[in-house]
């Protein structure tokens, strides 16, 4: 089952247009869903092994890009508020607490002044 889903995704990635979603892709595919079924289940094009290998390569090389940034001080620098004051929080970010959670303050709350300022580093859950 997973193997079929993998093959479907890889076949889609290879043949769909840029930004084309799966439903229009299926509709416009020559022979429609039946032809796609034949490709990934009956190997009508003889590319199933290739599709499987492609997915295996992707999984092997997969890296969580956000996690990689957290582990790289150089790239993490791009996410500070100010290049000349990395520990300084952005003074224009204002929040209020609502039902135990933070949300950005609206105009009138900003004018009222009863707002929380964001900390310079947002909490990171690992």
């Amino acid at each position, binding site marked *: 089952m997973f193997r079929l889903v993998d093959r479907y995704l890889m076949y889609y990635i290879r043949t769909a247009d840029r930004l084309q979603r799966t439903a229009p892709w299926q509709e416009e595919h020559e022979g429609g869903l039946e032809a796609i079924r034949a490709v990934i289940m009956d190997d009508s094009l003889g590319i199933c092994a290739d599709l499987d290998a492609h997915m295996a390569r992707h999984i092997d090389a997969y890296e969580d890009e956000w996690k990689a940034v957290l582990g790289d001080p150089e790239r993490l*620098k*791009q996410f500070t*508020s*100010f*290049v*000349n*004051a990395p520990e300084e929080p*952005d*003074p*224009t970010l204002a929040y209020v607490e609502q039902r135990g959670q933070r949300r950005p303050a609206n105009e009138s709350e900003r004018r009222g002044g009863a707002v929380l300022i964001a900390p310079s580093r947002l909490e990171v859950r690992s």
Partner: protein
Amino acid sequence: MTAVRHDSIETAATTRIEVCAYDRLTPDLGVAALIHGIQVAIFRLADGTVHAVQNLDPFSGASVMSRGITGSRGGEPTIASPIYKQVFSLLTGECLVTMDKAPHEGYAADLSVYAVTVDSGTVYVDVPGPM
């Protein structure tokens, strides 16, 4: 490196402030700097020039211009707001494309421009007023 001058700034008394190392800037990306309470967005372009404008986006009221998208219009380098995509000149700060929107109440559509100097690998920005 060329310094970008704006008429209104050239005549006013300004103070030159050291901001960061030139190498700290990534080509075609922006950074924000906090200079005497003013937020400045600084961009290093692919051609090596450095430009600085106000970080406040007048159309959204958020300080986000440093996260905008650099580009050009007829050879003039531009920055597009990351919020509503208004396009501003990086040379004059003039709003070139308003996206049929008006600026936030109390804000001018054009951005303030700050003169930038790169000297011995360090980036300096001139801000209005004495120290």
